[in-house]
């Protein structure tokens, strides 16, 4: 029979005596079992296991006294053992939950209250049957032997504790046999996987129990580590039973035989013990310690080629090997950048190689330019190499807007009705009002016609120029009545640039010219067109054209379309000299008799 007083194991916290800190977990964990006066032999045996040194025994004496007050009964230890065996089948969670429920008074009471009297009876009877035997607790070999015997009972208990639906909730079986049969027929796997379901249920119980223990640890100054320590101890013990399933530390069995040194207790026993947060964490912590070593080594073999500590690049760089450059050339820009962040030496290694440093810098610039401005149509976007189809799709959204905009621009730029090329040219030539235009002989663009009145001095008149009488037809053709020619000497003296500046030449505005009455009909002789003193002063009016186009601006004579020649008569229009004419007739032209004769003579 359990009583509240016997089940609760309350130990006062004595740091100097029994606490030991795990180096890894930083967790106080010392197994300390002591029982009441009736179970002294058993307690000593436990002490032999864990604290064989005389110093430890001395230390244990006051603790035992304190424990006697709190009185851990044999049933507790037995119950621990029982759970130790049960954990081999059902896991750690059941053990922890049951301990927490049994050893903590408040929780046990509350849990008991929730149970039915039938269940309570069942539990009590089971606990009575499993009488504590300290020797069994001491040696794990004996535990293993008894394990098989007790397994059947434990399974029953597990079922009764956990599976309320199937077994412990007997109403289904007892009242409705048909229902049970149906359930059995439809869910055989649930009955097969009984242990699994039990574990699942225990997880929840275990969480509750752990929460309670943690609360107690935090709240009470007098440390109630009964459940906690026992659970830790159970972990060690049960781990031996689970040797088939997991690998355990090699020195585990030595714990039972050899003397335990203080350092060993810290590391070998306590090492894997952690505050039991959950079953998963326990299992993982246990499995990590054993299995992780193998997996990591495999991983290392796979990824690091069996070596973990070999700075191959640094060594090659130190030896000034060319291979470093080869390695860096193999890398892409991104990994080059990450390599430069590894250490200062690696950074220096990359910076020492110019081509690779340039690559890195370019990559940085490229990433910056890509990520800086993502707005479409920005300068960076235009600079970027290619426009993807995604961008084109993006523009689709604006198609309607673009359409409207295009229409608006079309309306604005409504061009006039089309004209024939001849009319267009005509308009061009007529566009300049009050200006007479002529076609430029070079570029065929309109050229304005300007007139120059050439004042001939009387001296010159006497010497060189006699008189000029010209008549300019509207078509621009000149009927010439030349009597005298300007001397070559006078023409050579006047150049285009000097003409305007010289006092002899006065350029007239077109308006003035247009005002003259004879302008419209024909350009008669200057004497006839000009009146008064002008007739005396201006002997000649010379017309020339200036092309309006910027590229050309060709000055040309209106009469012969040759280059501007103000003081000289047009060369082509000058009549042939009599000598020339005579010679021409003498030699005979083409198709004349003489020529034909000569040709015949040459042919034969």
């Amino acid at each position, binding site marked *: 029979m359990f009583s509240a007083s016997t089940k609760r194991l309350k130990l006062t916290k004595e740091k100097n005596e029994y606490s030991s800190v795990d180096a890894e977990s930083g967790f106080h964990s010392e197994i300390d079992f002591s029982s009441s006066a009736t179970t002294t032999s058993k307690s000593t045996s436990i002490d032999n296991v864990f604290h064989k040194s005389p110093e430890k025994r001395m230390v244990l004496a006051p603790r035992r006294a304190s424990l006697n007050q709190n009185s851990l009964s044999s049933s507790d230890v037995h119950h621990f053992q029982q759970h130790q065996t049960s954990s081999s089948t059902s896991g750690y969670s059941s053990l922890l939950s049951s301990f927490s429920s049994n050893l903590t008074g408040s929780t046990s009471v509350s849990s008991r209250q929730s149970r039915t009297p039938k269940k309570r009876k069942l539990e009590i009877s089971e606990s009575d049957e499993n009488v504590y035997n300290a020797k069994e607790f001491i040696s794990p070999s004996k535990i293993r032997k008894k394990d098989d015997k007790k397994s059947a009972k434990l399974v029953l208990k597990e079922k009764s504790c956990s599976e309320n639906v199937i077994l412990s909730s007997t109403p289904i079986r007892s009242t409705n046999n048909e229902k049970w049969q149906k359930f059995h027929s439809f869910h055989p796997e649930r009955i097969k996987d009984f242990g699994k379901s039990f574990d699942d249920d225990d997880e929840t119980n275990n969480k509750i129990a752990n929460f309670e223990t943690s609360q107690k640890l935090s709240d009470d100054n007098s440390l109630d580590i009964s459940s906690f320590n026992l659970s830790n101890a159970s972990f060690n013990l049960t781990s031996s039973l689970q040797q088939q399933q997991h690998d355990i530390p090699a020195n585990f069995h030595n714990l039972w035989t050899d003397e335990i040194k203080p350092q060993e207790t810290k590391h070998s026993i306590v090492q894997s013990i952690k505050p039991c947060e959950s079953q998963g964490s326990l299992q993982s912590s246990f499995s990590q310690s054993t299995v992780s070593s193998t997996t990591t080594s495999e991983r290392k073999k796979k*990824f*690091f*080629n*069996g*070596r*973990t*500590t*070999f*700075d*191959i*690049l*640094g*060594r*090659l760089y130190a*030896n000034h*090997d*060319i*291979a470093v450059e*080869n*390695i*860096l050339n*193999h*890398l*892409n820009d*991104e*990994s080059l*950048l*990450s*390599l430069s*962040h*590894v*250490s*200062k*030496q*690696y950074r220096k290694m990359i910076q020492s190689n110019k081509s690779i440093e340039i690559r890195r810098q370019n*990559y*940085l610039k490229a*990433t*910056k330019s890509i*990520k*800086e401005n993502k707005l479409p149509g920005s300068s960076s976007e235009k600079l970027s190499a290619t426009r993807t189809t995604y961008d084109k799709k993006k523009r689709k959204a604006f198609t309607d807007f673009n359409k409207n905009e295009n229409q608006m621009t079309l309306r604005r730029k409504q061009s006039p009705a089309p004209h024939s090329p001849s009319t267009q040219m005509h308009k061009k030539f007529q566009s300049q009002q009050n200006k007479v235009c002529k076609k430029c002989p070079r570029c065929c663009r309109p050229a304005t016609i300007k007139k120059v009145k050439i004042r001939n001095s009387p001296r010159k008149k006497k010497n060189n120029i006699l008189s000029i009488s010209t008549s300019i037809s509207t078509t621009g053709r000149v009927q010439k009545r030349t009597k005298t020619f300007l001397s070559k000497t006078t023409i050579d003296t006047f150049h285009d640039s000097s003409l305007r500046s010289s006092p002899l030449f006065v350029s007239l505005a077109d308006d003035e010219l247009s005002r003259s009455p004879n302008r419209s009909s024909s350009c008669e002789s200057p004497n006839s067109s000009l009146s008064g003193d002008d007739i005396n002063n201006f002997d000649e009016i010379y017309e020339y054209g200036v092309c309006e186009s910027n590229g050309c601006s060709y000055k040309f004579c209106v009469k012969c379309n040759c280059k501007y020649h103000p003081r000289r008569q047009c060369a082509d229009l000058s009549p042939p000299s009599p000598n020339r004419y005579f010679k021409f007739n003498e030699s005979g032209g083409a198709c004349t008799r003489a020529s034909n004769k000569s040709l015949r003579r040459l042919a034969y």
Partner: protein
Amino acid sequence: MDIDRPSDPQVSVVSSDGTMFHTTLKSILLSGTIKDMIEHIGEGGVENMGAIPLQNVDSKTLEIVIKWIEHHKDNIQPTSEEIKDKTADFIDPWDENFLEMDLDKLYNLITAANYLNIPQLLWLSTRKIAMLIKNRTPQEIRSLFNIEDDWTPQEIEAVQKENQWCEEK
């Protein structure tokens, strides 16, 4: 005399630790260094030359190198200039398996390939290391080569500022 003479004469090389290896002339000519040596000796000198000492290559590495050149003796080996422009990632599976070795062996192989002037082997071995580094974070590379992070906090800030555009994803 010509009939008795083997078609491919044997050449022996001695490693730094005194181990002698025998191989064919054709295969050993893949090494640029040994090729130069033989060319300087001239015709007929090969048979009387004896063992070629290779002071910078140990026996284990030389064994690996000879294995590789024996396998590739019939292949046309690209020159070092051709290899510089080489960008194709296709590699013979045999070479892939061949280069599955520890990092220290790989290091020795690189140094040996560099010393013996075997551009193709050097290219392959350096590529192998580059593949180990490729697409890894700086922290992963540190753990791979066991390198200490010697950046000061100010330097880290400067680096982060420099690479802020690359880090943002």
